[in-house]
């Protein structure tokens, strides 16, 4: 190796970097993003997602990235409309028999798959058989195994009969993507090319999938739902949210989910971003709670649980963790929906009431100011998984409880260890975790006393006879008004018993480039993405797209 060689190396690197830098884009011209534009066909929408979809067959996949992409490709029999009521999807109508055990779905006429083959009730029956087949590796079979008999009297009718009436039945038919029999009948559903090359019936079909980088969907001209306005949906996989944000500010992506700091601090300070990016918020689909191990003292004492509920300042948590972008809740249902009991309100922050309840339970302050009963101090450990918001929540709670003399320690654990080492074994005091705000009100798996086995979801050990009865009743009642009454009653008992402290339901925050029009603001209960087939990008606002062929 000599000097000349080294120098030529460096020279080459130097020159090439100058060359690279010089092929850059020119300044962008000024466009009026706020003007009025007519609906326009075409254009590409680029969004960012943190994880790559695993498998586009939703019954096999478990990740949210997969269900987002698959939702654009497949249809179910029913769907939720923007106000979260049942609406036709593949089925144009449905009928429930008088004994409430049989549902018959009438499919729309002339349905077809993206490859042009007709879509009939045989496909629906095939999908049902697939998900209930013991060889199919799906975690979601149990709802469909309740169907005693399924039949197809004619190509447009699909009929299911349940053993006994099952109220969440209609909800289960909104989430089962109907799959094409003609392609899958000889395939092993667990391991098939179809999971990466799906043929569906919805607005979009798969165009190209660059592994680990991006998934491109294009408009399906045979869509059974009508034609979408935007021609291509491109999902770029960018794991780091700061990088996503840089891409958004550099105009390389149109849509991303943002965090409260970006929403409340970054955007208000950046005029340049406000000009081209619109922010949306909608109530998310989950809530965060503090849950007690009810099989362990002192949490088996309702007075202790209620006291802790009074001692935690939920507004402070919402302000501190979510910068105010969340709501305090008092039932496990989305505020504003039918199931939410409007007469309930969260436990207010009231430390003196908390102390009084604790005194009733036998806890008095010793000379150091810590609460003790029979010489033993009141102390416990909060465990949570590695989730920044939950960690911050735990810290705020720790401080408030310390003020009234309760010693709290916090432990943050990696997810798989968290579940196996602590949740499944019941070896914990208190958890900070989250549950989904489900659209169907059935909460049997979480709160019924029979669901306490290892790996089941009533891991807090909640057991209340009245609640058990209500949950059983609610599962059988198909009359929506009677059902509403049952679940409002259930929420009331749950709030009084205080097995968990409802902390907050956070808002889902999205940033969307203003070139995208047709988004409803304020967001309907079903969220802004609900009508994404109706979004459009007016021609003058499109990127100088080399993508356009």
């Amino acid at each position: 190796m000599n000097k000349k060689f080294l120098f030529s190396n460096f020279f080459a690197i130097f020159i090439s970097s100058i060359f690279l830098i010089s092929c850059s884009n020119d300044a962008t011209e000024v466009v009026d993003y706020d003007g009025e534009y007519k609906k326009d066909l075409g254009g590409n929408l680029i969004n960012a997602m943190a994880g790559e979809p695993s498998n586009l067959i939703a019954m096999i996949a478990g990740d949210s990235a997969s269900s987002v992409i698959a939702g654009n490709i497949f249809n179910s029999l029913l769907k939720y409309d923007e106000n979260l009521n049942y609406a036709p999807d593949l089925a144009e109508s449905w009928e429930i028999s008088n004994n409430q055990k049989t549902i018959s779905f009438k499919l729309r006429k002339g349905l077809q798959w993206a490859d042009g083959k007709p879509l009939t009730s045989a496909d629906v029956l095939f999908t049902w058989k697939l998900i209930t087949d013991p060889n199919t590796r799906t975690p979601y079979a149990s709802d469909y195994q309740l169907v005693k008999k399924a039949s197809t009297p004619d190509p447009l009718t699909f009929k299911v009969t349940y053993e006994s009436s099952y109220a969440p039945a209609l909800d289960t038919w909104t989430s089962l993507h109907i799959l094409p029999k003609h392609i899958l009948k000889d395939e092993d559903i667990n391991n098939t090319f179809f999971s990466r090359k799906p043929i569906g019936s919805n607005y979009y079909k798969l165009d190209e999938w660059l592994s680990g980088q991006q998934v491109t969907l294009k408009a399906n001209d045979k869509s059974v739902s009508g034609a979408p306005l935007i021609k291509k949906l491109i999902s770029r996989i960018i794991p780091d949210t700061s990088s996503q944000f840089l891409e958004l500010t550099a105009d390389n992506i149109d849509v991303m989910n943002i965090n409260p700091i970006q929403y409340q601090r970054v955007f208000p300070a950046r005029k340049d971003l406000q000009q081209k990016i619109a922010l949306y918020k909608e109530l998310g689909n989950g809530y965060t709670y503090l849950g007690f191990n009810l099989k362990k003292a002192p949490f088996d004492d309702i007075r202790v649980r209620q006291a802790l509920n009074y001692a935690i300042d939920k507004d402070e948590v919402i302000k501190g963790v979510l910068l105010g972008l969340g709501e305090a809740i008092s039932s496990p249902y989305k505020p504003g929906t039918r199931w939410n009991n409007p007469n309930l309100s969260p436990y207010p922050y009231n430390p003196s009431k908390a102390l009084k309840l604790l005194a009733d339970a036998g806890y008095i302050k010793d000379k150091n100011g810590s609460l003790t009963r029979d010489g033993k101090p009141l102390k416990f450990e909060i465990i949570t998984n590695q989730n920044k918001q939950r960690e911050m929540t735990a810290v705020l709670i720790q401080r408030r409880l310390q003020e009234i003399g309760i010693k709290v320690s916090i432990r943050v654990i990696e997810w798989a260890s968290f579940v196996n080492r602590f949740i499944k074994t019941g070896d914990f005091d208190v958890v900070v975790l989250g549950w989904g705000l489900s659209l169907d009100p059935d909460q049997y798996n979480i709160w019924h006393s029979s669901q306490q086995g290892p790996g089941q979801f009533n891991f807090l050990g909640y057991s209340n006879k009245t609640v058990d009865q209500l949950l059983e009743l609610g599962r059988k009642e198909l009359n929506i008004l009677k059902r509403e009454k049952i679940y409002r009653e259930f929420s009331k008992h749950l709030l009084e018993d205080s097995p968990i402290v409802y902390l907050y339901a956070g808002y889902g925050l999205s940033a969307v480039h203003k070139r995208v029009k047709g988004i409803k603001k304020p967001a309907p209960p079903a969220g802004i993405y609900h009508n994404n087939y109706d979004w459009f990008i007016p021609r003058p606002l499109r990127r100088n797209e080399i993508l356009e062929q």
Partner: protein
Amino acid sequence: MISYLIKRILWMIPMLIGISLISFFIMHLAPGDVTSNEASFNPKASEESRQKLRELYNLDKPVIIQYGLWVKRIVQLDFGNSFASHQKPVLWERKDKSGNITKGLIQESLPITLMINLMGIFIIFSISIVLGTLSAVRQNTWVDRSITLFVFIGFAIPGFWLALLLMYWTGVSHQWLPISGLHSPGFQNLSGFGQFIDLLKHLVLPVSISSLSGLAGISLYVRNGMLDILHQDFIITARSKGLKENKIVFIHALKNAILPLITIIGLSIPGLIGGSVIAESIFAIPGMGKLFYDSVLMRDFPVIMGILTIGSVLTLIGTLLADIGYAWADPRVRKGLVK
């Protein structure tokens, strides 16, 4: 020499068995398995279905039996399929009966990581040799001190922080370089040369960031080696013969000073297949680091074992190559004069 080589290669077999055994057991010591990821903590997913999955993947059997099953497959070079719902093969692509190809996970990620790391090593070594030589020749001057300061700042600076700053500066405020990813959207419509330039542009930042922290070690190594050599008798002889200083430094001294680097290059072969999780996440590069990290979080045992096995084979081969390379480059080693 030959018998030494054969002995070395035969020794690799018990080493590999030991490595795989230890990795397999450590992996199973961590609580949880593939059925306990966050997405499956969903009231709609039943415990029976998770149990079914455990049985299917033999996760309900004792660890030693699972290890036996794994060895049985691996001796036929079958790395198996991922436990994830995509069921991709761990190592290499597979074709189904109608001709659809599913690519292997390592097959997809390895070329990307390899490309970045090779470029990184090339840059690290070229720059380090220059910096190291320069600071040795100008020992204890401001040149030496500022080079040392520079490489240590590069070593100490948090990569992700610098990465974000550079992404902002080159990508958002000046739009010189793309921010993340490997290809621009519309990559497929570019000409071959255009695709090459597009890829290079995407690689400038990740490669520079990943090289920066490596500069300090190697350049100091070169500097110390160089100082050592420059004080040896044969250099004094060369000087007294009246050889030009440039010739002394770049031909006689440098050649000897960079000899130990062969060992370092050999030892960095296994590092070639490993990527940095943080860099890959920030730059949205689907490389080996992210693949391994995600597999560990998911408890995707076949993928973890696949990467570890390939990594340990490469480590053993790397040390072997380093020894051979050393013997080739240094006649004293070849003749058994030094150990």
